[in-house]
């Protein structure tokens, strides 16, 4: 997603309009569609929390009140502030979706060490990650301007971007280009190619929670020459031939499950070094592999690992392959 980045706001020169008003601090957080981008705890406080808790942390009182964060003993442990930031409290909305883990660490660290608080910062990225709810329902706007936002989110969702209103900045950056370039098969699966490389495997794949994963047992080569002797290598062929016949079997098994090679998201290949060689025939394996993946007819790629193993169940087998496929 290429975000429209407006010039960082440098408007410190503008003075608050009334005597007694809390004065403004220069804002260095840009307006971006998705979320907050700064990783500076003070900037996050000034451009986010200070709206209600006030620039000096003193809180505010009207018909109701915003609590003071200044000299607040609840900030001794970051877990308290982190929980409230992520989940909200009382009339304060949950804000976890607008900040990533590092940003919340930066923010709680600022709160613990500023605004008259003098505590040892104790937040870690791991702690923040654990504080997040297991699943969060996207907060859809419900009102008029919401229709623009909803439409934007729908548009974003359609191209694999995380909905702008609920995404952390980092997440929102990832989806669009990779998805548009390499997606296919089950809708909702996001395939991430290896950046700057055309090697035909993925660097990563994202599978939505509502998709069904289908695990195939290890598949082994087929006999390709019935006339060859029971113990002749030719009966199953070399690594290239075995890879091809193994993948052909996998394709059939998938078809029986109403799936295709395009639905494969993960592969583990076990290769045995051919007789007379002390290394696997990786080139031979690739020769068979590229007939099934990254072709014009079947452009989808899986994530993949290739292992050298000492032997397989049949001494003539040089190849065994496991795949995981995804069904929406």
């Amino acid at each position: 997603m290429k975000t429209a980045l407006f010039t960082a706001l440098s408007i410190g020169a503008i003075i608050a309009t009334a005597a007694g008003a809390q004065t403004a601090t220069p804002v260095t957080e840009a307006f971006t569609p998705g979320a907050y981008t700064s990783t500076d705890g003070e900037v996050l406080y000034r451009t986010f929390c200070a709206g209600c808790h006030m620039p000096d942390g003193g809180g505010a009182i009207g018909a109701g009140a915003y609590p003071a964060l200044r000299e607040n003993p609840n900030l001794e442990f970051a877990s308290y502030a982190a929980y409230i930031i992520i989940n909200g409290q009382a009339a304060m909305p949950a804000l976890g979706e607008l900040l990533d883990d590092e940003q919340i660490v930066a923010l709680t660290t600022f709160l613990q060490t500023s605004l008259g608080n003098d505590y040892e910062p104790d937040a870690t990225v791991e702690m923040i990650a654990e504080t997040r709810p297991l699943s969060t329902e996207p907060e859809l706007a419900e009102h008029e301007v919401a229709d623009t936002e909803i439409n934007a989110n729908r548009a974003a969702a359609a191209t694999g971007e995380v909905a702008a209103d609920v995404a952390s900045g980092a997440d929102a950056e990832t989806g669009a280009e990779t998805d548009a370039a390499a997606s296919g098969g089950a809708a909702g699966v996001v395939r991430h190619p290896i950046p700057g490389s055309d090697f035909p495997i993925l660097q990563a794949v994202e599978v939505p929670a509502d998709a069904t994963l289908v695990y195939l047992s290890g598949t082994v080569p087929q006999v390709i020459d019935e006339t060859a002797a029971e113990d002749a290598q030719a009966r199953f062929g070399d690594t290239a031939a075995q890879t091809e016949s193994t993948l052909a079997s996998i394709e059939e098994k998938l078809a029986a499950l109403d799936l295709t090679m395009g639905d494969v998201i993960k592969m583990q290949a076990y290769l045995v070094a051919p007789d007379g060689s002390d290394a696997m025939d990786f080139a031979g394996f690739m020769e068979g592999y590229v007939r099934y993946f990254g072709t014009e007819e079947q452009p989808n790629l899986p994530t993949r690992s290739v292992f050298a193993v000492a032997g397989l169940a049949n001494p003539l087998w040089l190849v065994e392959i496991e795949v995981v496929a995804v069904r929406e």
Partner: protein
Amino acid sequence: MANLTRRSLLSMIGTAAGSTAMYYAMTSMGHAQPSSYAGSVKLDGDPKGAKVLILGAGLAGLTAAFEMRAAGYEVEVLEYRERAGGRCWTLRSGDSYTELGGAEQKVDFADGNYINPGPWRLPHDHHAVMDYCRRLKVPLEPFVQTNYNAYVHRAEAYGGKPMRMKEIKTDYRGHVSELLAKAVDQNKLDDMVSADDRELLIESLRQFGVLNDQNEYTKSLDTSEYRGFAKQPGGGVGAAPIASDLLNPSEVIQSRLWQYLATHETWEHHAPMFQPVGGMDAIARGFEREVGDLITYNAKVVSLQQDDSGVTVTWEDTAGGGTQTSTADYCVCTIPFSILGQIDHNLSGGLATIIGEMPYNGSTKVGLEFKRRFWEQDEDIYGGISYTDQAISQISYPSTGYLSDGPAVLLGAYTWRGPNSFKFNAMQPAERIEIALQMGEKIHPQYREEFKTGVAVSWHKVPWVLGCSGIWNDRERDYETAIAIDNRVVCAGEHLSYLPAWQEGAILSSLDAISRLHDKVING
């Protein structure tokens, strides 16, 4: 019965079974829209002088006061502010507004100019608020929601140049229609479109998308009739029209400007929409004319207690000083949960939990006054809304005072939830105005030259509500508990409706709450 007319049948049903039954009968006979507004509420039966205390004089509280006094109750209303209306609020010349944090804004608009920081338009399908405008004699005028000559704008579309909505709309429709018509014509959709339908579908697409006989969307006087001409048809010498160029189909798709084309097609934005003449608070003033004598202003509620014998509310007189107590038999509490959650109360556990956990939404509006109506004079935009992907999200031009000389106010920013609302909220008013100018001038270069003054309201900083509208954590789970009568107290407001942030939601919530409360008073 032979001569029974439909009207007399309706009248009989109404007499026999009450207005609700009549309403359903009308709906089934095709005479009414399916709204939960059943016409003027009927609170039949004598409450025998029972007293009701209404907390909050927003539209929910005002509705309750108006209807319950009419039904024979003794009514007392407590309001935190110095005026009625709540979020039904208009800022105009001479007003001053101090937000949390202390920043005070003195509104310096020209006489008659205003901005509605809260609700600003009335859907015709909001039957309750429309009916109260009728009954309270609040004059309405059209609110222009849709203006095809206004702009749609994205920083990355067309080099940041604002595009007229009519061009994007017509070309998007035309290009899509051409694709679909050709696909059908080339039998590519035969498994989805029956042979009988194919020809008619193509014919409809030619009309809908303005396609030629070859199913093509091309530059022509025909397509210009919809998207606008390079030179309009005129009179006299050289009057012949000149067709306009079409936008490239791929660019239209890639521009993403289509995302703004359907905003006026949701039911709450269908034309015609309306606005009260002179500002939204005309509705509050209308209610105030009826029930203003019941309202105690500057009353900050600090405690709400009920027991078997009645309700006791303690409040601070923020104008005169001191603490006072009001008692009643029943209470309609329209205080936003963002505030009520901080008040000492003894409401029941389930309700108390919901009150204590309802988040409130953020929103920012910026009103900008310019020395002249350059959008009308230079760009032929009369009312309506331009949309942008910038944080201001939209620019709404005034739906009144067209062609007049002198200053005019437009809505220069309207954020709704999301990070941009928080960022605006964290700014001082002058900063919000500056951002609105920075972003708006990308659409209207006249901004700086013509700017006169502005007002910026960020709802999380509004002292008497601390947010724009309530958000349900789990409405399906909590709704019935939240709206139920808790012994002698019932809560009402936009937050207790399926129309959050709309005045219609506040009124319908209130009418339902007082109907149930009244039933309890009369029938036990």
